[in-house]
């Protein structure tokens, strides 16, 4: 396989690419080659330089030194448009479509064929239909992008890139908000692209996905090239070691913690259209995992428990006493903390500093007679950030300038400052790198040891299986399974999440 690939001319060759921002090296002599019909994974922790490398490929950045060769010919991209014209397309985690326009127009926006000044709508729909058919998806080109799922929106973006004759498609964490079936569908499309000679650069933090779809992998660490391997010849441990430069033995370090009293008890919680008749108990020192497909109502449940959108019926008991939680303030007063799924929108105030973010929920503590003791707040925020090893230029740095993993640490630091007795974590490690992930898991484990009751929603089964003492599975707004740590397997969880009996699911 590798030999035959090497006889071809690479679509793109990055040679000794360096790029620095205000004196800090983001990339240092990085190289990468991608051949036609190859799915090439790009792997590295957050801050390893993946995004910067991609941005030099798509013409967003100009490298300070080094060469980019396209089909063996050296070339400089003048900007994103230029790269696009040269056959380089990019699909990002968050699709950027026109929500008010239909699929066909999204594919053809800015270059609708015209006949004597008028848009030739028939040609627009024909071309869109062709592209969708080539990808083997049965989407109606008349549908508005607003009404599409994230996966469908990505498909539309892929169709758009293809209709621009993209020969290299860069996918930056495309799977991070997809369900398992959607990931499978995306992989089918990627394989099909590979067959037709299109090259794909695929970025994901989920290593199992790389094994499923990639031919080769290039690993970056701290802005430097570490190596390129054929996927068929490497093991997970090798990849992790290359990525973090050290051995990460136990990714899920959940320690046994003694179960305490029942901290939270939920009976028959219902919010129509979201979830129904949800009952469970959560103990001090316990990590209760909540598994299920996206859209199963897990996030809605978390939001209801935290009072953001309260349930319509059912009871919530904390330490055996029935409580009413109809707002986030009430939830916090009851000792709840909530780390939301979308840290950019709900977890952080991005334009504010790290310090301000951390002290946001506990500001009253630093206020006397309406006057804020800023110094004390800063000192505490600084200590909190240090405890969680937030990597930053200082606590005055703005949250939006941090990498995803460090942002998540800030969110966690913020909630830990409130000293919650019950902590709800919604996808606590989505989109963050292996190193930070291990740190977050370690932290969760420590908190449980200290007696905090943790409810953890996660779509990553290995995380659920590794971290939870007990696991609830939700499907279509109901709890459809409950497993103890010892008895849980991926197959059982998936079966409960998708309503297939375990032996049937093994056929897939």
């Amino acid at each position, binding site marked *: 396989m590798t030999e035959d690939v090497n006889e071809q001319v690479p679509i793109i060759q990055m040679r000794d690419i360096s790029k620095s921002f205000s004196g800090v090296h983001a990339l240092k002599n990085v190289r990468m080659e991608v051949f036609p019909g190859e799915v090439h994974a790009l792997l590295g922790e957050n801050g390893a330089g993946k995004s910067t490398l991609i941005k030099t490929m798509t013409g967003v950045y100009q490298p300070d030194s080094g060469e980019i060769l396209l089909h063996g010919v050296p070339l400089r991209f003048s900007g*994103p*448009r230029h790269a*696009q014209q040269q056959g380089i397309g990019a699909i990002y985690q968050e699709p*950027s*479509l*026109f*929500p*008010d*326009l239909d699929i066909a*127009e999204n594919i053809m*926006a*800015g*270059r*609708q064929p*015209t006949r004597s*000044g*008028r*848009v030739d*709508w028939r040609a627009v729909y024909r071309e869109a239909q062709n592209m969708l058919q080539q990808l083997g998806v049965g989407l109606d080109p008349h549908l508005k992008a*607003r*009404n*599409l*799922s994230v*996966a*469908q929106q990505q498909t539309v973006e892929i169709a758009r890139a293809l209709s621009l004759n993209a020969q290299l498609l860069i996918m930056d964490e495309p799977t991070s908000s997809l*369900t398992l*079936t*959607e990931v499978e569908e995306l992989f089918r499309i990627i394989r099909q692209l590979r067959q037709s000679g299109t090259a794909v650069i695929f970025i994901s933090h989920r290593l199992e996905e790389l094994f499923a779809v990639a031919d080769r992998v290039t690993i970056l660490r701290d802005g430097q090239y570490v190596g390129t391997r054929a996927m068929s010849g490497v093991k997970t441990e090798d990849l992790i070691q290359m990525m973090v430069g050290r051995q990460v033995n136990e990714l899920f370090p959940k320690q046994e913690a003694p179960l305490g009293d029942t901290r939270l008890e939920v009976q028959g919680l219902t919010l*129509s*259209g*979201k979830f129904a008749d949800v009952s469970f108990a959560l103990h001090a020192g316990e990590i209760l995992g909540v598994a299920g497909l996206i*859209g*199963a*109502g897990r996030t*809605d449940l978390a939001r209801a428990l935290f009072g953001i959108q309260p349930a319509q019926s059912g009871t919530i008991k904390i330490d055996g006493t029935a409580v009413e939680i109809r707002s986030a303030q009430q939830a916090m007063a009851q000792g709840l903390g909530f780390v939301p799924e979308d840290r950019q929108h709900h977890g952080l105030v991005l334009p504010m500093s790290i310090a301000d973010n951390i002290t946001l929920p506990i500001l009253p503590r630093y206020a006397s007679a309406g006057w804020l003791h800023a110094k004390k707040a800063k000192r505490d925020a600084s200590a909190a950030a240090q405890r969680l090893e937030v990597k930053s230029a200082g606590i005055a740095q703005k949250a939006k300038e941090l990498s995803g993993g460090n942002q998540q640490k800030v969110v966690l630091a913020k909630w830990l400052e409130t000293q919650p007795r019950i902590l709800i974590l919604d996808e606590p490690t989505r989109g963050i790198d292996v190193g930070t992930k291990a740190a977050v898991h370690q932290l969760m484990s420590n908190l449980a040891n200290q007696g905090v009751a943790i409810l953890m929603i996660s779509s990553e089964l290995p995380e659920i299986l590794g971290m939870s003492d007990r696991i609830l599975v939700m499907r*279509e*707004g*109901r709890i459809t399974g409950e497993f103890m740590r010892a008895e849980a397997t991926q197959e059982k969880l998936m079966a409960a999440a998708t*309503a297939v009996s375990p032996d049937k699911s093994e056929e897939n």
Partner: protein
Amino acid sequence: MNTTAPTNQKSRSLFLTLVRFRELSIIIFILLLIGVVALNTPAFLTIENFRNILLNISILVIVALGQMMVIITRGIDLSVSSIIGLVAMMVSFTVVAFPGVSPLAALLLGMLLGAILGSFNGVIITAGKVPPIIATLGTLSIYRGMVFLYSGGTWINSFEMPDGYRALAKASPLGLPNIILFAIAIAIIVYIFLNHTRPGRDIYAVGSNPDAANVAGIPVQRTLFMVYVISGLLAGLAAVLWASRFESAQTNTALGFELQTVAAAVVGGVNIFGGSGSVIGVVLGAFLLGTIDYALILMQISPFWQLAAQGLLILVAVIVDSAIRRRLQRLGGAGEF
């Protein structure tokens, strides 16, 4: 799909159909309103009244269509009323000074002046990076001030105007008053422009997602500039028709009219956050406002109620709109795939 699915399929599809034809709900509302008024005042249901309503809303339709294009790009043009005031004054002074000027030339002059005033808005917003609401709030005052400076506080009266100029809006050589025909023609032109030309589609794209538009190679800044020029041009055209219809040009001509154009657009389903809006919707929105105004006069209700009714309608429209949007999002989102 499983039987436990939370949403009722039937009500859902009916709901989607209704939303898809957003215009349908405005039509229903108009019919209801006409029904209520007709029950109170049977004299309401005449061709004559219908014609009067059309006459009253023609200028509004023309300017509101420009306003719609601006709003689709996530902007707003508050200066239209002052553009009307200034252009009406300048063109009227010109035709009084040169009575030989053909009415058509007066129209073209009005459009040109309007486009120039609109292009200042465009420059301030695109090159100056000033938010549209601030930029046009500024020119709203500046242009109104210029009306006073230009006219020296005087005004043009009916008797000073040449006959041809006065007939421009009101004559009806084709059966309907010209002003209504102008509105119909502009509506058709704008419809074709928005739905069948690339610059027209670019307006929607820019308003729907400016960043994606940029990446798709759509000239975002040029498109923004263009909508303010068009809005100014249509306001300039409206100015000449205004002066002709009311046979005067005064320092307070069209004062406060900008809010009516925004109202017509919003009531007509144009999303104030950009990205969507239709010609038919705006025409219906203007018609709804016109019907209410006319009905209130007919029923001899205080004109103060007119403003209140208009305000109420805007609020209802926006609330209904956002409720629809929220429900759509919920339907489109969870549990679907």
